[in-house]
């Protein structure tokens, strides 16, 4: 009798084992394609953000490096030259007609030329750029702090996110765009960079102006920025996830 039970038990254990194996190997792929799975797994980013807010002070600075650490060749990534006639025309003129529009939930919307931005107090920092793919490069970035630019347009209290609209058209039919929260916008290492390694920002790195964040991954740092808009929610834009890569399934919170 015990022998029969034991055989049944063995079969049960074998069945459970085989089931678990199938679930792990095949099932996870099927699960990955379900929107519910994506939304449940993706929601961990908010727990991660909350936890990181507890252990990392609001203005804690990303480590800065020395000139000797600067990468000999900084790896360019994403769009290398926007396929956009308007952008190409601006580039041909050395971006002298380029204007950064800053509007949305602000008291006084403004347009900034490159000279306007260059005449503002600039920050120069040698920081590490971490790509979501896993590699890192160190570069020296120069430009005004975003918070100083925003101070000129007087954000309204309802403003919760800063949207960045860019010149590069993407394969999903939208232009590249990104969003950060006001807390990130106010961080002292959040720059609108117009120089890399002491030289005018080259086109492949996002000329004439790109966003630089000290504490998030590369895809948040929009290149070819044309228009900044303060909003209460990023949902109305693109596919509603807050940015081009977020619309492709990447986490909005890119602190990890």
């Amino acid at each position, binding site marked *: 009798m015990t022998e029969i039970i034991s055989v049944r038990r063995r079969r049960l254990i074998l069945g459970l084992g085989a089931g678990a194996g199938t679930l*792990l190997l095949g099932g*996870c792929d099927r699960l990955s394609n379900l929107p519910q799975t994506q939304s*449940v797994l993706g929601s*961990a980013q908010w727990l991660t953000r909350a936890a990181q807010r507890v252990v990392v002070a609001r203005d804690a600075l990303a480590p800065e490096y020395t000139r000797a*650490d600067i990468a000999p060749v900084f790896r360019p990534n994403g769009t290398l030259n926007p396929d956009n006639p308007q952008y190409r025309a601006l580039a041909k003129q050395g971006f002298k007609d380029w204007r950064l529009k800053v509007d949305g939930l602000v008291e006084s919307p403004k347009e900034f030329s490159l000279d306007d931005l260059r005449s503002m107090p600039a920050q120069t920092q040698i920081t590490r750029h971490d790509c979501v793919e896993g590699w*890192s490069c160190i570069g020296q970035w120069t430009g005004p702090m975003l918070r100083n630019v925003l101070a000129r347009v007087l954000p309204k209290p309802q403003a919760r996110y800063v949207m960045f609209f860019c010149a590069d058209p993407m394969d999903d039919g939208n232009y590249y765009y990104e969003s950060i929260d006001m807390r990130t916008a106010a961080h002292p290492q959040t720059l609108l960079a117009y120089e890399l390694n002491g030289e005018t920002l080259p086109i492949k790195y996002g000329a004439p102006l790109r966003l630089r964040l000290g504490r998030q991954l590369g895809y948040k740092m929009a290149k070819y920025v044309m228009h900044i808009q303060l909003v209460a929610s990023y949902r109305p834009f693109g596919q509603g996830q807050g940015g081009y890569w977020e619309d492709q*399934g990447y986490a909005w919170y890119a602190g990890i």
Partner: protein
Amino acid sequence: MIKVFIYRHTAAVRVFHWVNFVTLSIMLMSGLQIFNAHPALYWGATSRFSQPILSMGAMQDDQGHTWGVTTVGSHSFVTTGVLGWSKGSEGSYTERGFPTWATLPGPQWLAMGRAWHFFFAWILVINGLLYVILGLLSGHIRRDLWLTRPDWRGLGRSFIEHARLRFPKGDEARHYNGIQKLAYLFVIFIVGPVIVLTGLTMSPTIDAGWPWLLWIFDGRQSARTLHFICATTFFGFFIVHIVMVILSGVWNNLRSMITGRYAIEAAPAGGGGSAHD
């Protein structure tokens, strides 16, 4: 000799074990998916792309054949079909680090690999912390895993016995032996914490709050390399663990990790004979 059952694993340990098994499997496979987004490892703060410690990729020869090549330091190995160049989910060969059967999800899909990894990282850490806290409070770690003086003295013998695939029987099988204890302590108190800390070091936000992590691990790319080495160690532990479970009695071990009951052969009461001579 009679067969007696001892109560080997408490319910808590059994739950921790199986949660850990599922979680580690998911972490390992989604980790390989993430690795595949840039299948190369470096040392230091940044990626010196021309000097990887390890890299995987495809190369074409003069005849137009494509080979999978894995390079470790200055040594290159042909790894066609497994590393660098393997069959994709559509059945045709593609350039990828680890093959589809080893990654989660199978096809190249970094966003989803990261979603799995960073969700289950929480479960891994919570499960691990609860295990250690309860293990310390209940005395499980001190009683069952901490090495006793005889364990230290018998380490050499225990190692030789393992290598010869002879396993403790009778009364000696009531407890873990020295080698087992060392292996468990090593993964619980060294590999586990290091894999979590090197994972955290890759987070640019954590680096701002805890810059000492960069100092400990010599930079973000070194941390990524150490994370990979720890994952490989976990995988090695897993393989050895499975082999030992099978060789020392698969049903007995599985039963003990499911119901708690573990069978040992014991001499009849008062016999006291050594089952291990």
